[in-house]
């Protein structure tokens, strides 16, 4: 049984729950993939920390289900994340327990300063320091500013989530084809369909480009 673990960390309101839901929706009709995962909901959402986990189990053909080796929990064990999507730089530092050399890190570099910095004067770490810390945990990092990419192309931040899903798709690690994701977007997103599909491609291409350079 192949397991693929995805973790999304971000600030409440950034859409980590929406992203988590989409990444689960897309495999619901796929007979060979079981998915589980969770999101932090409730009090945490009010501009606090909101995380999403998506855990895929891919059943190999002819494989028998072995309970003792299967995925049971919604949490990702230490170092087991295959993809780690951080929607905000400081948030990327809080869940590094799931990151190891095998993790593909995607960092959205748009900064949302917490109140501790804005009001209480705590220093927001330098982006380079954050990147250095991330590199210590895994050599595989791609950085992009999904918010600015969304604003430049569409006038607002709404498409940031889809851009980053596109980037995650481009890692090739998830049991999801590009077409599957497009289909799920068509079925689940009610507004600006064309823009969302463009955003998916934008993220996919940006990640692929960053990797090849």
């Amino acid at each position: 049984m192949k397991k693929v673990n995805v973790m999304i960390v971000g600030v409440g309101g950034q859409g980590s729950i929406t992203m988590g839901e989409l990444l689960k929706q897309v495999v619901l009709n796929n007979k060979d993939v079981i998915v589980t995962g969770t999101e932090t909901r409730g009090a945490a959402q009010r501009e606090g920390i909101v995380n999403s986990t998506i855990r895929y189990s891919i059943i190999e053909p002819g494989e028998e289900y072995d309970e003792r080796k299967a995925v049971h929990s919604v949490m990702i064990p230490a170092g087991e994340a295959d993809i780690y999507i951080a929607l905000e730089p400081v948030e990327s530092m809080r869940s590094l327990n799931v990151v190891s050399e095998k993790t593909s890190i995607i960092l959205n570099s748009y900064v949302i300063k917490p109140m501790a910095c804005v009001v209480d004067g705590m220093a927001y770490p330098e982006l380079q320091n954050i990147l250095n810390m991330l590199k210590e945990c895994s050599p595989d990092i791609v950085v992009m500013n999904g918010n600015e990419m969304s604003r430049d192309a569409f006038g607002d931040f709404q498409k940031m989530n889809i851009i980053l899903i596109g980037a995650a798709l481009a890692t090739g690690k998830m049991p999801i084809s590009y077409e599957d994701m497009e289909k799920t977007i068509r079925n689940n997103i009610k507004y600006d369909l064309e823009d969302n599909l463009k955003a998916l491609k934008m993220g996919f291409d940006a990640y692929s480009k960053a990797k090849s350079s």
Partner: protein
Amino acid sequence: MGNEAMTRAAIEAGVGYSSTYPGTPASEIGDALSLLAKDIPNFYFEYSINEAAAIEGAAGASWIGIRSLCTMKHVGLNVASDALHTLAQSGTSKTGGLVIICASDPGSWSSSSEQDDRWFAYHVNMPILEPSNAAEAYQFLLKSYEVSESYDVPVLLYPSSRVCHSVGTIQLGEIKPAREKGEFKAAVSRFVNAQIVSIQNKKNLLGKIKKLRKKLDALQLNRVVEGTSTTGIITSGTSFGYTMEALDLLKVYDIPILKLGMIFPLSPTEIENFVKNHNLTKLIIVEELLGFLENGLKEVLYDAGIQVELHGKDTFSAAGELTIDDIREGLANLLGIELGDAYKTIMKKAQKGRSQVPSREPTFCPGCPHRGTFYAMRKATNRVGVFGGDIGCNTLGLRSPFALVDWVVCMGAGVGIAQGISHKSNQPVFAFIGDGTFFHAGMTNTLNAIYNNANMMLIIMENHWVGMTGHQPTPSTGISSIGDPVIPVQIKDIVKAFGAKWVRTVDPYRTRQLIETIKDGMKQPGFRVIISDQECSVQSDRRFKRLFRKTGGKIPQTFYYIDPERCQRCKECLQKLACPAIMLKEENGEEVIYIEEPRCTHCGVCQEICPNAGIVETKINIHLEQAQE
């Protein structure tokens, strides 16, 4: 989602009555039922005003033969417990099982505490089922009705937040139709709990639990994962899943595991058999929170005269959420397995990462009327006095820069505790409460305070929704439990009827006016009420966005802009109002404070409070009528 799975199970079970008070992590169950209520034949749903009303209503329906469901979060059980303790003695009915879904919050991520509700089982004598994932939550809810009706007892289904919000797949079953009506048949010896009747009912209840204990196996709620080792594990709920994965990560595959689905009562035979059949010399109990299972198991083992090396709370913490890594470490320790350098390095780096970054505490959303209220209170009182906090979005007033909450205990305890202090202190006393909380628990405390002439000020923050849990309607919303328009209740009439003499209603977006009103109130004697009345900005902004899309943008709009030349960098808006939509950047060596337009909900409070006329308002399309939704 687990909550959705349980909702589906309730519908399939033919539940005819459902009541809830919103509470994370159970809120989504009520929300789903509210949306579906009109489409399910003979289905009654209500958002109750608190868990006492919810459980009592559900019990009534159960007694007249209607399957009933009552859902709440863990602390809600405290409020329901007064009724529950006694009505459990009266039982349910043959066709009207009563199931209570009580969702726990280990780690207290969305609560004032992480209380362990399993202990209610001993107090109430009520069976508890604990599912370990979404699919089991679905199955167990269906089973719960069987148990409730076969044994004539209310049953508690106890999913944790990780179950409620986890994703899984279920096979849909047939939907059993709900009963339309029932009839109450008088039975004094069953329902009138007093003196001898009460004692007899209690004896009956104890007998039912004893019977259930003997016939537990038939329910097939517990199972064994076979293994040959003489070390065994007993566990339940999410801990089961984590244990399985932890053992896989430690490469240990021979430990037999008894997974309990019904955690009260325990079946002595089942447990004795588990220990004896596997020749266990060592038993590890993996559970979260206080050692409820450990306690029960020790009792069973002692009575059976079985001696084993037992571990549980000595290894797995009784406080905080148990993560998969906590369980891995605990088991590694108990099984004598090295964790390995790779693991230790990862955990060290994670710790380093966490320590390097500032905390991110939740705060009010952009445009939240509570921000205006707390800002005004801070300005008016200058933080002099005692400030009682309550539960809900208004609790966030404890955060910087307001820090205007001196305690958080439970629903209604803001005014509840404040009134006590006001009678024996000379300090100015204030309390905050939201409208949902006011209806839940604040009304009685307010009446108490007025009746006993407490000298203090209560600020009722009326944002017309139960906000923190996902915007459920409350009597001040103007929408019923199933989405129909109703006349909203006027809080000012309630407090006046209670006898409050000084009552003012102000829109917190008119912050300067609110500051003046508060200062005015501070000079008055007696129990004063300020109703800070403005709709939750998440709801008003959602409505605006819907209208915007529907009309292609042809609706009146307002924008705010910080003029960088007029702005004098006093940082009142950035640091004292601290709206998340207001940000600071460096441009050409200069500080520029600006409004991040995509985050702004255009409430206008920043413009109100700017001392330098630095924030400019622009309105467009004011000649266009607001389209009806």
